[in-house]
């Protein structure tokens, strides 16, 4: 084989190169031209709208406003005001003298992002933002991605190992685990709304498992809504990643396991020495795919919570959607999309760099 390879290169030389270049161009042409037309063109249009104040369905001509959308989106400020430990409204009323849009203040029109009080309660520190939801949705999305990546990826691997073991009925189990993947996210979301009710199944089960458990309504609790949606999302997609892990597992030669067993390795040591290194490419693939999907989470939010309660489940794409489609603010929505794009590409690039070392 090796000598044949060398022979190839000598024999085929230049003409092969130009043939390859021509064929390569021809083969990518259909896909690339369609993507240029249906994806890149709209993206360029959408992105250029990010520098305008365009409104959907407005008879007013849009105009170019430079980076104004971005300065509003990213602006942050710190305001310290007097507070009254006995009356929570005092601090807010004081802050309001700065943030009320009609007042002359650098913080006019800004929204509360977070607040903290001095130990004696006489001073309040507010962080205000031009678009508090931008920061909240960014935070929620990062939490979503950071939690779901290990949860979903790990659970998928565990399932793949289970399926790959000696149990009977593999095909059956594998099929059942994959079924949520082929069910539409809208349908899945509707079903889980029922389970997450205060008298729904999630509470019945938790009540049976945990003595003295107080039933909660998951989707209306600001603390529990996002975790509940994360769990459901992992449930829905884990079967897909299980299949990818399975494919990876089956590329590991059986001889390696035999050799490890001969060396007296137990199951865990086999996993560490053979399985995990053999899954490296799969790992990178799964990680990147989960992250990209997680950053774009939208459907379940739209169906289940509309971003609530108290913004606790507003994700970045949901924010983009609401600004653009519900408030018709296409210009600002496009600016958000540009920032989103930059963030996700950056995260993907970092992930690739971090996972590339051994390749």
């Amino acid at each position: 084989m090796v000598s044949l390879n060398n022979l190839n290169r000598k024999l085929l030389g230049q003409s092969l190169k130009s043939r390859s270049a021509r064929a390569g161009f021809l083969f990518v042409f259909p896909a690339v031209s369609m993507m240029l037309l249906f994806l890149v063109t709209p993206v360029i249009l959408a992105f250029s709208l990010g520098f305008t104040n365009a409104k959907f369905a407005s008879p007013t001509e849009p105009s170019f406003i430079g980076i104004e959308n971005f300065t509003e989106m990213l602006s942050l400020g710190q305001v310290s005001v007097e507070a009254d430990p006995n009356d929570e409204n005092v601090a807010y009323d004081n802050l309001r003298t700065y943030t009320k849009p009609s007042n002359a203040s650098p913080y006019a029109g800004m929204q509360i992002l977070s607040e903290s009080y001095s130990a004696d309660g006489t001073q309040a520190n507010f962080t205000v933002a031009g678009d508090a939801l931008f920061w909240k949705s960014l935070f929620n999305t990062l939490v979503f991605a950071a939690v779901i990546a290990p949860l979903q990826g790990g659970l998928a691997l565990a399932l793949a190992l289970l399926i790959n073991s000696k149990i009977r009925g593999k095909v059956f189990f594998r099929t059942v685990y994959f079924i949520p993947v082929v069910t539409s996210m809208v349908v899945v979301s509707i079903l889980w709304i029922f389970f997450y009710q205060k008298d729904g199944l999630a509470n019945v089960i938790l009540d049976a498992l945990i003595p003295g458990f107080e039933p909660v309504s998951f989707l209306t609790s600001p603390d529990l809504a996002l975790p509940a949606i994360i769990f459901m999302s992992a449930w829905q997609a884990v079967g897909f990643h299980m299949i990818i892990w399975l494919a990876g597992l089956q590329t590991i030669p059986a001889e390696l396991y035999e050799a490890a067993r001969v060396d007296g390795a137990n199951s865990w040591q086999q996993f560490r020495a053979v399985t995990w290194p053999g899954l490296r490419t799969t790992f990178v693939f799964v990680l990147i795919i989960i992250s990209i999907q997680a950053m774009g989470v939208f459907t379940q939010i739209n169906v289940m919570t509309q971003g609530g309660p108290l913004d606790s489940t507003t994700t970045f794409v949901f924010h983009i959607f609401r600004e653009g489609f519900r408030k018709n603010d296409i210009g600002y929505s496009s600016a958000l999309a540009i920032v989103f794009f930059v963030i996700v590409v950056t995260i993907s690039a970092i992930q690739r760099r971090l996972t590339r070392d051994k390749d």
Partner: protein
Amino acid sequence: MKKKFSLGLTIQYGFAIFFMLLFSLPLLFMISSSFKDPQAIFADVKSWRAFFPVGDVNFDQYLGVFDRLPLWQFLFNSIFISAVVVLLGLFVNSLAGYAIARLKFKGQNIILVGLIATLVIPFETIAMPLLVLVNSLPRVGFENGSFELTTGWLNTYLVQIAPFIAWGFSIFLFVQYFKTIPKELDEAALIDGASFFSIYWRIIVPLAGPAFATSAILSFLAIWNAYLWPVMVVQTEALRTVQVGLDYFWASTSEEGTQWGEIMAYSTLITVPIIIVFVIFQRSFVASVASSGVKG
């Protein structure tokens, strides 16, 4: 030794069954509920009855679905659109994937990086510009017995198909997979004088079953579940798809109210066929995954 072994296996079965319940119960709930009246659904959700078709079981919800919308038309549209996108997409995307993974040409790397970048664009952000774009594209229409050139793609199958054939994720999948096929295979064929296309068609495609299966399943699901785009470009019931059909059951502020029972029946009707197709299809899907293991 033997005893320990079976204990481990018991635990494995325990987990396998636990997860089986976890993954199937919500769908059992959906199917069971589709045979119940809405009041019964809400009453049963508080107990294990939710998962079983017990109580007053009937087909009323299904009859209601058939009364409310043209189910067969919607199903046909969804199946037709998804099938065409999948078939054309497999060809176009695998061909591009082959070129990027195994041929050498200018701009190859830029295209790959560009493809990966397209994966992160949420469709919601480009839907509006895309709408305006397709509305100004020319199209050959068949009207009054003759072909004529018209403008605008709205209210066609074409507009629900064409934009989704080329898909970065699918190309990316093929690139990754094709890279794992030994290069020696095509080089030997090249020496025999085979064209690049015949290498793709006769050597690469037959070896890439898992990539095709994965790509097919994912693009099928993406199209089957599409909602926003059909709402925007379809203005006639005759071309509507099953996901938009779900909207027919939400009528909060009207006499009839939201039809939870019918939603369950309709969800079952649009989900179970896919599950059946998958169950049939998955034997070859997973078999090809397994065979790739032997060859890789």
